[in-house]
């Protein structure tokens, strides 16, 4: 009986190690970019949320989707995503983060140093959004990085995988619904 009592938690712990391998801790590259961007923002941030979902974490997500709502779109999209890394950082100081040109140019410089290229930037008095991409060796879209910053927080999201397939699927199923330019021109 004692043996069994010990064995079950041990097995659970072992299974958890395998299941959550690649979960929670963001990778070194993500940390480097995060540090560069926090420094460029010119104010003090503290980490609110920071985690990653690797192969196994996303595997669990796929299973949940499969069992819970059988959402075909989510299933198809998740199939092509291999890793998601997310960081949310709260502004601790009373100083406004630097939204404008100087932050963006610094961010561009740092991101380019890490091999990213920007494709869309949208910013104003209160918020900024920048999207960066990277291709793999065969020229396929393999990684996307989004920066969102407002007065209260900085959010970083990195998604890796066969993103060509994801986008092709979305366009085929949902059509084009891009809203990158200002709605005032509609």
């Amino acid at each position, binding site marked *: 009986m004692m043996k069994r009592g010990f064995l079950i938690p041990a097995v659970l712990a072992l299974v958890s190690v395998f299941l959550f391998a690649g979960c929670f801790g963001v990778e070194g590259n993500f940390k480097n970019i995060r540090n560069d961007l926090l420094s460029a923002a010119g104010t003090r941030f503290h980490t609110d949320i920071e985690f990653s979902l690797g192969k196994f974490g996303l595997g669990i997500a796929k299973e949940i989707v499969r069992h819970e709502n059988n959402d075909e779109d989510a299933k198809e999209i998740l199939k092509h995503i291999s890793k998601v890394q997310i960081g949310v950082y709260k502004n601790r100081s009373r100083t406004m983060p630097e939204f404008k040109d100087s932050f963006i140019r610094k961010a561009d410089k740092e991101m380019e140093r890490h091999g990213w290229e*920007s494709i869309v930037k949208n910013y104003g008095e209160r918020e900024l959004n920048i999207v960066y991409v990277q291709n793999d060796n065969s020229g396929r879209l393999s990684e996307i990085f989004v920066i969102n910053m407002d007065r209260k927080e900085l959010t970083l999201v990195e998604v890796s995988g066969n993103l060509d397939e994801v*986008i*092709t699927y979305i366009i085929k199923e949902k059509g084009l619904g891009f809203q990158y330019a200002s709605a005032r021109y509609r």
Partner: protein
Amino acid sequence: MKKIIGLVAVLIFTATFNLCAQDKQDYKNDPGYVDFGNLSEFLNSDNVTEVNIEGYLLKMVGNATKENDPELSKLLNGLKLVKVYSFNVKGKNHKEVLEKITKLDNRLDGDNWNRIVKVKSPDENTSVYIKTNGDQSNILGLVVTSLNDDGEAAFVNIVGKINLDAISKLGSKFNIPTLDSIKGKGTE
């Protein structure tokens, strides 16, 4: 968490705007490409959008839209670059943006671009230029400059083989300023 989900959604949708290093050198030497020069002094204003959509991803979107919208698909497959700068202009910058547009007008005129749309009124200043090949059978580039009385400015450059009737569709699908006014304009 809602914000993160929103961001991931934005991220996936905007992922269609990809930069492909392989294509980069190609379009800069293309006759349809225009360097707008340094716009950074205006990009400190409010509501700024900068977009660079290059050939590889335009083709990918083109292939994905083949079944549902063959006309748009064909157009996208012929494009090498869609570049957009839009921003709000305040105070003295209004005059400076207007000067920038005038200088660009003169440069494009000198480089044999044809102006196909010109709107000059107290509340709007918009021009659309096209670049054609030697025998004018193909359009190789398109430039839009626009500034209105509300201080909304836009600089757009589309590089590649362009069908003017389809370009308005590109404008509405991708929400690119002023392109919807171009349909039906010829190369005459």
